[in-house]
């Protein structure tokens, strides 16, 4: 597809998407429309992150959930106030335990590098790992117990650093990037299908750690009341200009305040998305982007041209994961709470995949459109399904078995709809709604 038609299509589809939000605004409510819009923006950022990995470089990463959860954890670790008592109860021994773990890993790596291959090396590594395990375990266990027993109903964890929440977004991206570097270093040598399974597994491991290391993240007890980057609705209601605006719009102060908060969130998210988009587009059109696509389309040829395939893969894997981590951090900030139990692969990995495939892999606008579109229908499928079920069965009695079944099932319609959308896209439009633009001018 050439650039001009692509531009027209992009404009058309984005306008249609905008209209959909206006329709929701009129039919349901403007507040809901804005909420959906905000979540759509986060989904778009996540889809952009995946598009960097899959669309640019063809890396089949199904561990997105892990990176999103890491980003969310960063918000807790940075923005929450520290729990002094817990630090004094077990902070020191916990740090010692972590130091032991670090020392063990470094010692094992040194032995692996220095000693010649053979039984001696294997035995030495095994010995180091076992000794390290018991040493760190001896410090870790009392520390974890001490920290978790400090006021377990409210804290029971070390807390964060008490820094501004905006900083935590960057930390989230860095944390996810570091994790990606480690994972990529280990797994990127694998073939694409193995990479998929390995990332799937690693995401589950990351999540298990976040869920069950309660001293660090409170685990499934959740962290509530994360500091917000925007003022509270309740404070906003009292201000002069909100009241003025409410009178002028013929609405009530609480409603205007709620809308203002949502608009503020939308502004923050939109500006982040635009900045990321600028970076992504510049990168894609630069020599670096061309090299990435060359590697994706033919690894052997690119390697023969002197491109360092594994290194470039690692680079793009880290960048994409960092963007996903950022989106995870933003999501937690907007929710105002960190709930490790809510991370499931269906919602945080596979749905993002549907977004990128449907939107158009390799095209950044496509990924964003896919993110917005799929999230919109993920949320709106329920009301639409309910309306359809009610309309279709309106001839039947209210307590008809078929009718109650359909109405109850409407909530799960979205799974079916998503599956169908994905299959239809693969069948009839395998390159997505907005296909990749080839750089060659016709």
């Amino acid at each position, binding site marked *: 597809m050439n650039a001009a038609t692509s531009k027209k299509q992009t404009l058309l589809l984005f306008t249609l998407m905008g209209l959909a939000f206006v329709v929701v605004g009129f039919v349901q409510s403007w507040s809901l429309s804005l909420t959906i819009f905000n979540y759509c923006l986060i989904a778009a950022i996540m889809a952009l992150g995946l598009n960097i990995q899959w669309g640019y470089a063809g890396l089949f990463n199904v561990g997105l959930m892990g990176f999103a959860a890491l980003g969310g954890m960063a918000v807790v670790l940075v923005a929450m106030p520290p729990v002094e008592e817990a630090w004094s109860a077990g902070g020191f021994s916990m740090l010692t335990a972590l130091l032991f773990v670090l020392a063990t890993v470094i010692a094992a790596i040194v032995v692996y590098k220095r000693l010649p291959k053979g039984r001696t090396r294997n035995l030495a590594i095994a010995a180091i790992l076992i000794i390290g395990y018991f040493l760190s375990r001896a410090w870790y266990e009392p520390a974890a117990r001490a920290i978790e027993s400090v006021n377990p109903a409210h804290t029971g964890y070390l807390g964060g650093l008490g820094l501004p929440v905006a900083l935590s977004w960057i930390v989230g991206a860095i944390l996810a990037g570091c994790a990606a570097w480690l994972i990529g270093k280990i797994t990127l040598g694998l073939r694409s299908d193995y990479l998929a399974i390995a990332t799937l597994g690693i995401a589950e*491991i990351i999540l298990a750690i976040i869920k069950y290391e309660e001293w660090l993240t409170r685990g499934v007890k959740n962290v509530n009341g994360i500091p917000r980057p925007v003022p509270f609705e309740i404070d906003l209601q009292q201000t002069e200009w909100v009241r003025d605006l409410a009178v002028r719009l013929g609405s009530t102060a609480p409603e205007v305040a709620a809308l203002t908060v949502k608009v503020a969130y939308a502004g923050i998210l939109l500006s982040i998305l635009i900045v990321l988009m600028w970076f992504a587009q510049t990168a894609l059109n630069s020599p670096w982007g061309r090299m990435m696509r060359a590697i994706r389309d033919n690894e052997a040829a690119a390697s023969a041209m002197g491109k360092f395939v594994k290194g470039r893969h690692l680079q793009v894997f880290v960048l994409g994961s960092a963007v996903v981590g950022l989106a995870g951090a933003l999501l937690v900030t907007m929710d105002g709470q960190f709930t490790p139990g809510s991370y499931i692969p269906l919602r945080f990995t596979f749905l993002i995949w549907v977004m990128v495939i449907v939107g158009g892999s390799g095209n950044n606008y496509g990924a964003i459109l896919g993110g917005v579109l799929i999230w919109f229908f993920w949320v709106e499928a329920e009301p639409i399904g309910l309306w359809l079920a009610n309309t279709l069965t309106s001839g039947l009695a209210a307590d008809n078995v078929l009718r109650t079944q359909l109405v109850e099932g409407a909530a799960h319609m979205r799974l079916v709809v998503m599956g169908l959308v994905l299959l239809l896209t693969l069948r009839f439009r395998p390159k997505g709604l907005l296909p990749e633009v080839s750089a060659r001018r016709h």
Partner: protein
Amino acid sequence: MAFGTMVTILFTWWLQGLGVSLGPLPTALLALPLGIAVTIGLILICDRWVYRYHRGQRAKPVIFLIASLGLMFIYNGLVRIIIGPGEQRFEDGQRFIITVREFREWSGLTEGLMLRSSQALTIVVTLIAVAALFWFLERTRTGKSMRAYSDNEDLALLSGIKPERVVLIAWVLAATLATLAGVLYGLDKGFSPINYFHLLLPIFAAAIVGGLGSPLGAVAGGFIVAFSEVLLTYAYRRFLSYLLPEPWMPEGLVQFLSTNYKFAISFVILVLVLLIRPTGIFRGKTI
């Protein structure tokens, strides 16, 4: 798997409603063939509508993976619409073969042993299924042609093996085994759509640990994953109390890892196997 189990459960309820039962065995066994038949039907329809097109295009494996992702969404949704997202129990018949108390009285030991009928059933059915699969793949003409097709598509085509037939049989086998496993698991632990979805990942792990393409490997992989899960999270306190003298008893439960990490262990094993020996323990094929 969840779909097959659901159909079986529905048939079980229908049969129970009719007053049919097998005495000590669960009624689900009677409904099983019907469940398997419906699942095979569903999977063949999906194959015709979805996979056949992509096979014709000779698409990359990744495309199949994504397509199966879409199907997974649909199955998941269908199951939740039809039976609801809650948990269902459908076992009936005799619950226990050996109970803890009976065993203690019979053997005179202080620790008990329990065997639920569903567990015994699982062991018997697994043995039969593995034996039948082995016989099929190693001894019959169809089984051999299937293995030939998976080893080298072009050569198999040249020697007159029909690819559509191979695919058909593969789907029938997959549907049968998945429904079987689903029903057995459901008899033991109860059925809920979300649990069945979570089972997907350990199953992946077991198949790859054992080595794809080797039925013995799949069983061995399953055992390795399951045993390491239990051995690493088992609380050894009770065990040690019989070995060590009183003053040496350690405090705490003496676990290597907390029970919460049960799930994670299978993935650690999976990643290790992928890195060290990507073909699996039994030297299966790469996908």
